[in-house]
């Protein structure tokens, strides 16, 4: 009985310590994700305590006119229009809150060069609701992203 009590106490302490590790729940966002349009794949990484997503794959990687790798030609800042899209951080500064939600971040749309406020909600371990919005959440659009894994 003593052994069982001691084991449960130790396990409880471990669980408690694990639960208080900052960001651990939030790390479920890490991985490679595909937006609903299937045009890109985005890898979510953690830098410090925040989460960032960069483009790692493009369905159409090269510019059809020049044949060269696509750059961020629609960026309103002309100095950034030569930055390659592969490797571009389109999700920035997300902080894990609670209840499977990440907020305080932005999402960049390379198709029109606009940056939107954004929240992320994980609806199941392999699905994200990515809501880009303008000012208030009602003026926005939700895109559903799916988790990717190496094909067996």
């Amino acid at each position: 009985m003593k052994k069982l009590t001691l084991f449960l106490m130790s396990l409880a302490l471990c669980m408690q310590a694990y639960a208080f590790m900052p960001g651990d729940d939030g790390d479920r966002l890490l991985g490679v994700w595909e937006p609903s349009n299937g045009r890109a794949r985005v890898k979510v990484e953690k830098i410090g305590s925040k989460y960032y997503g960069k483009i790692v794959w493009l369905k159409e990687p090269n510019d059809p006119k020049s044949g060269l790798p696509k750059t961020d030609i629609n960026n309103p800042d002309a100095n950034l229009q030569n930055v390659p899209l592969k490797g571009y951080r389109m999700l920035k500064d997300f902080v894990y809150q609670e209840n499977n939600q990440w907020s305080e971040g932005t999402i960049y749309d390379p198709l029109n060069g606009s940056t939107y406020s954004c929240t992320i909600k994980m609806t199941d371990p392999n699905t994200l609701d990515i809501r880009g919005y303008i000012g208030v959440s009602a003026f926005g659009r939700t895109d559903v992203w799916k988790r990717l894994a190496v094909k067996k």
Partner: protein
Amino acid sequence: MHNRFNPYWKTIILSLGCWAFIHVAQAQNTDSTKQESADEEDFSMYDNVGFADEGARRYCSPKIEGLSPAKLISIGYDFQTGYGLGAGAFKSQDKNTNWSQDSVNVLNSQGLRLGFNIPVISRTNLVWQMGANYWEQRYFMEDPDGSALQTNHPLLQTLSQNGLRTLGVSTTVFKPLDDKRFLLFQGSADLNGDFSPLGMMPLKYLKYSAALVYGLRPNEKKQWGLGLARTYRVGELNYIPVFLFNWTDPANKWGTEILFPARAHVRYTINPRNMLFGGFELEGQSYRLWNTNGTPDKFRDEDLEIRRGEIRLRAMYEFSLKDFIWLSVQAGYRINYRYEVDRLVGGQEIYRAFGLLSDEPYVMENRLGNPLYFNISLNLVSP
């Protein structure tokens, strides 16, 4: 002594071991993503990936690349330059009163146009939007000789006193069937008439329009479809086929935005924040003549509706003023297609089907000139 405590130590070490394993595994996972940089990363490793959830499916998007942005909020003003308006003669329902024809100069007609569209559900397998709109058209008239308006014609009286208004709600549902095929449904319910904002018409005068399109989206730059619409765009109720064709060229410069016959535009993209359009829109509705302000007694009981349909040939320039605030300016030529007045029979509209099912004449046949028009709107566009 040693033997007595040994099992406890084993238990503690085992528990800490579990914790350490979880912690290290977690740390390794985090570190592996932290340490990679864009320069070092081999992007080819992401070619050979698939959905982690094997049951997940891809669905086609409601938009294509290069399409002009959808408007969430639109505040606009429409202005038509002067034209002549000839109102036809007609008899009252009881045949006891005759109104003779009369003509006026419309100095201009103008009005506010407000529109709202809010996404309600936006999921990969279903997109649902709700909208509302308010349009008004006020008429400023004079007699043909340039003197102040003096007319006994009830149509001219109500147009000059009350103008025409539309207040409506709409819904759009986009249902992708797979990654190539989709269904698009649009429906609206509108109150149209000579009512004033403070004196609303009863809801029984709502007019319902709808369209259902079955479409294909073979690639990121083209979607097309065929469907059927119940529409008042030619002024009176009709059931007509509709054709959707949105397309963008490989260089993202030229494209089309077509939902024929409602509208068809060629698009030239200067850049994603500056777009030029040329084409037409077919506008129209059935307007209930209901307001008693400035019209003869019992005119409301005549059960009359204006069947208004017009073609707007136009050029448009839409551009981003700042971020998501876009300005749209358009100029064009408004061609009158129909402005007749119809009487309801037993409270029912006469369904003519372009004369195929009925050749019942309109009770009042009117003539309108075709003026230049201008429209400007400030818009909050969708992400």
